[in-house]
């Protein structure tokens, strides 16, 4: 319990420091102005989300291979946290887009593939809620999770493969891409903070899943 409190406090301190740096340390972007400060939170959440989905994918693969319930718990914990992070990306994106593009939403490659990603992980969680039997639920959702992960690289490469409304990549985006050195430091600090925060949420969600498993075992014992 003490470890969890320390981890939570550390995650909170990092995200508070990240927000402070985004508002007060990062310089104002020349073209977009202050609204660009959403970038640190929006992209930080997006990168953390993609990495959490990667851990989910690994958990799903390991479950199919080993059939150990702890990998199922890891898979569902990461799927839920990744979904929440993607929800934040889908909310903060349009808030940033409206003053810059003049529209809240457009069906461009990046936005559409991210929305599809969100729908896929909603389906993953819905699928789990529809299957009663634990082993069957774990196996089918792991297989679906492996399939759902295919969209993650598609989201990542969409702004490299298709040039539509969403801005081109800031990093490794070729000529003209890149960030001001202070912006870069603030950005990577925010990415780190969001990863620590995401890891904390996954750890909390994992404890919940293991507790659920314990309840199921006790229920079986009580029924026997």
């Amino acid at each position, binding site marked *: 319990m003490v470890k969890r409190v320390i981890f939570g406090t550390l995650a909170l301190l990092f995200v508070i420091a990240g*927000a402070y740096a985004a508002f007060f340390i990062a310089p104002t972007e020349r073209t977009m*102005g*202050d*609204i660009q*400060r*959403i970038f640190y*939170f*929006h992209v930080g*959440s997006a990168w953390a989300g993609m990495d959490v989905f990667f851990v989910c994918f690994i958990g799903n693969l390991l479950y199919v291979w080993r059939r150990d319930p702890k990998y199922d718990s890891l898979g569902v914990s990461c799927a839920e*946290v990744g979904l*929440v992070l993607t*929800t*934040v990306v889908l*909310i*903060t994106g349009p*808030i*940033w887009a*409206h*003053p810059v593009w003049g529209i809240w939403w457009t069906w461009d490659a990046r936005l559409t593939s991210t929305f599809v990603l969100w729908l896929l992980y909603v389906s993953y969680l819905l699928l789990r809620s529809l299957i009663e039997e634990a082993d069957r639920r774990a196996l089918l959702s792991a297989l679906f999770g492996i399939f759902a992960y295919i969209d993650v690289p598609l989201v990542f490469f969409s702004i490299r493969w298709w040039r539509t409304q969403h801005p081109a990549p800031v990093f490794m985006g070729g000529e003209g891409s890149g960030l001001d050195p202070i912006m870069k430091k603030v950005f990577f600090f925010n990415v780190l903070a969001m990863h620590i*925060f995401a890891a904390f*949420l996954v750890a*909390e*969600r994992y*404890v*919940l899943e293991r*507790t*659920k498993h*314990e*309840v199921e075992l*006790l*229920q079986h*014992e*009580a029924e026997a």
Partner: protein
Amino acid sequence: MKNLGSIFAAYLIGWGVFFLFYLSIAKRTSDLRAEIERLKNSLLRPK
């Protein structure tokens, strides 16, 4: 600061979503712990 409302809205809504998610985890965990206590007590009770 221009567009201050939009910047605050993005951060507040985003952190609101995280906060609600954390609360839902805490609530579900606490309900399950209560269920574990109840089940353990019912198993310990002589039949």
